[in-house]
């Protein structure tokens, strides 16, 4: 049996988490390669649809990386995102996904090592959870 390689989507904010990822890259801090990053201008832009879509299409985990509270480039998009993601977690449960598969973290632009750490931790967490399975099909 081959080892379980989780499929993970990371929705990251352009101003912070994405910059941190870039810093991690240029500082040669390696993080698991099976993370597909999608750059957003702000986490406030992340529609619950995207997260649901990702899970229903077979993602095992979704990571959202935004600016620290008070630090959002657009004032409070990150806090709006936090609310929305809390709600999305509840919906995920109805589809039979563990809410832990969706994780929101604040990562500042200069926190390359934190970015690496978060990615590694998340992959480990998802690996323990195993592949994501839905009990409810729906097409988005």
């Amino acid at each position, binding site marked *: 049996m081959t080892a379980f390689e989780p499929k993970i989507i990371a929705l990251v904010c352009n101003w912070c988490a994405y910059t941190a990822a870039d810093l991690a890259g240029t500082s*040669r801090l390696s993080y698991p390669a099976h993370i597909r990053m999608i750059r957003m*201008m702000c986490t406030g832009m992340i529609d619950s649809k995207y997260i649901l879509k990702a899970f229903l299409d077979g993602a095992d985990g979704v990571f959202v990386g935004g600016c620290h*509270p008070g630090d959002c480039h657009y004032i409070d998009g990150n806090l709006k995102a936090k609310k929305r993601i809390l709600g999305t977690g509840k919906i995920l449960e109805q589809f039979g996904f563990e809410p832990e598969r969706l994780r929101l973290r604040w990562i500042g632009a200069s926190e390359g090592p934190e970015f690496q750490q978060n990615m590694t931790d998340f992959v480990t967490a998802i690996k323990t959870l195993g592949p994501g399975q839905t009990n409810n099909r729906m097409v988005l």
Partner: protein
Amino acid sequence: MIKNTKILVVGAGISGIRSALDLAETGHRVCLIDKAPAMGGILSQLDHQFPDNHCGMCRMLPMIDRDNGQQFCLRKGLFHENIEILLSTEIISIEGNAGNLTVTISRRPQGVDPDRCTGCRDCESECNIEISDEFSAGFRKRKAIYLPTPHQIPNQRVIDWDTCSLCGACRDACPTGSIDLDNQPETLVLENIPAVIISTGVELYDPGHVDLYGFGHLPNVVTATAFERILSSSGPYQGRLFRPSDGKALKKIAWIQCVGSRNIMIGADYCSTACCMFAVKEALLASRKIGKDARTAIFYMDMRTFGRDFQRYKDRAEKDAGIRFVRCRVHSIEPAENDKDILISYIDSSGNPIDETFDMAVLSTGKNPEFQLPEFASREGVFTVNSARGFMDIQGAVISASVASEKAGRSVSKKGSALLQQRPEKLYFDAVCEEKPQLQIVLCTCGDFLKPVLDWDRIKAELKNMPGRIEIARIKMICDQNGWDEMIAMLRNTTANRLLLAACNPLVYLPRLKELSQETGIMPSLMEVINLRSMVDQATDLAFRTRAVLCELEMSIRRLFSHNPVEPALYPVSKSALIVGAGPAGLTAAISLAVRDFKVSLVEKTSRLGGNWSNIQSAESRETIRTLVTEVENHPLITIHSEAEVIQSFGNPGRFVTRIRSNNKDEKSLLHGVTILATGGRAAETTAYSYRKNNKITTLFELEERLQQPDFAVGSNATIVFIQCVDSREEPRNYCSRICCLKSLKAAITLREVYPQSQVYIFYRDIMTYGNSEQVYTQARRKGVMFIPYDLENKPRVRIESGRIMVEGSDPVLDEPVFFEADLVALATGIVPNPAADLVSIFNLKTTCDGFIREADSKWRPVDTGREGIFICGVGRSPSRANEAMDEGKAAAQRALRILSKDTMIASRHTARVRHVFCSLCETCMHVCPHGARYMDFELQRVQVDHAACQGCGVCAAGCPNSATIIESFEENGIMGAIEAAL
């Protein structure tokens, strides 16, 4: 010789960046130079800033016309169409006359060709010179060929010629031949420079000079900047708090304030202004990181929490994080018995000598007293930013930078130097919307590096099978000029209207996309760059790597195909301003705009211009304001509406309509492009300390006024008592008013001069004489004014006993009560903002809990509000001294010029658009928009987007229940497609 009409900005720290951007955004060409090989000045070393404890530098980036600049982290570097940046460059001389200067600069080569360097680091490993690294404050070593800052883009190395031995090892090791050891500086003569701005910052004091503190030989005594590196996750311990000497986890840390500042012995008769909050912030961050075992202490003389929000921050640090504030001068730091810890000796407030051990001591160093501005800084046509004269906090630096750009801009406009012509946005994009999407993919193979590590046949085959019209090309190295040219030549010959560049770091290419677009006719928003290299670096085996690359390519392809640009909306800018409030700030702003030929409507509630005189007693300031009033009254472009107020306002940046009503009930509508609010403040009222119960108990403002009167008299050996911070710096009015200490000191000095026999006492909590006003404090002490500190638990008491005024306090040194019979008591009651609730709701702004109008960001955008086109300045925003308020007025005017100098507002790309057929007018978007860029168009019954104010953050799109909103370049179907492709 370079023919040049650029304004030269010297120093690329935040002040320099601010000035450069200010000018660039108002259509000037700018050349920004710095002697360091990287940008950012001291801020490049700091990851955390008060008040949110994170970096927010990116908020300085342009918010209108964003497409001219970058949309990513500013610490990575700066890029703007109108700004040319020269690093490792110094000024040799400035000659000529104001408006037409000749500047000679010398530029050191960086040694590494950025176009060829691939960042492989081979050079670094071959270099055998090792010295301590300035960026990490000496906690790390670096080579003579090194990376000046970790975040800078492009992150190629530079050679430090001062330490390089020119041995050639790096050159021989470089696989791409990008190293050149010719270190001859190049001398350039720039002619026709219309103005120069000096924003070089100040040099920090080297505490090695104070033997007493052991800096330099005790490894656990560090400077505050060095501690910032310890806190940083790109620092020596990845942000964990270890101490340098033995790696012990830090628990007990002391901050020592005023090292090298406020010390007349070394000629430092000034306060370095920013260090108090710097220390509080560091102590707070450290305490949080350490957790419950943290024992942090700050040793200080006066805690200078003079900013609007500083006192509450400090209080929180004290209460929540348990930071100990100890008032004393530390007299020595020595090694502790175990030889690792350090021993701090000081005299506590009751005069007892105390020795205390700490894990580490942090020295708050300020400006170096020996630091001097270059001689050419005083030339005409050369403008010096205040932050290059004395150490300043970020807010101060940002405001003073805008003041300098306002002055430079003004002098240049007088000389009639042409601004850049505003180019109409290219119309060749028109056709794109009609055309079928066609995509060109350019794969950079990074020399030969990527050839063997990827399965190219599979990539080609799979890309061919993807739906849509796709062309693929492979180029050996697009980062060098040949590759770039090859790509441009190829793109000119295609009919593709979308471009996907798979290369290395996208941030390197983003600044070049606009240029690429001009060459090839493909819209910049239809280009995307992905980082092939990093994917390859991350993944391990060939199949996996190839799969990852294909995945990313497909994600981008899906997104690019989903883009559907529309021609951005344009609308004309009304070339006039509305200024509310005719105090020092408002008047200054009015003049700044009027001299640049913009019409100004000045609305003032009272019948008199000049603002609140009670705040402005010094003869000098009064005179300045009087001149200002006359100037405003006589300026043909300024219309004064006195005894008038604003009753309604709507519109967008560039075109607001405001109704005002004057006292005689006349109503008028004004059309204006920008709004500046300078609503000011007034003296606070009080009932404390038996005020009004006896006419010898007055407020400080009343005393000042009485002092001007010829018949003022107190007995020749009178006892005069000043009480500072009356009702201030404690809840509910928990802020410092900034003006009282200085006023009390000046009044005290005057009294001592007139009545040498008198006794003058000042009860104070902290004397807030920041910057050079410290000299007044020194003078007051010399004049024999007596200072008695008090704290909130031990406030002085004032009693009236059969007509006599008794003041009682306690002397902390003697720990004994003190009594005086006072002939005069002056209460420093501070200032409060004028009520602005109406205005705030009319303009849809926010206030602080004390009623000050809140700015967009207290550090990075201090005079902007959350709404573009509306600016604030003066006491209405935050307590300030008259000269500071006037500076804010200039800064606000400078910000306003970004809009007024445009003929048309050009929407940036990546803004929101509404698909009206799907919109149910639920107005959710209007509530969530953080920039007030959404409004209801009642005529059309539609929710509209103001494209000038919209920043494209997409909160509206995510909130829309009907997916009626789309954000250009972040279309829903594109992201959904990318998600599909990713899985």
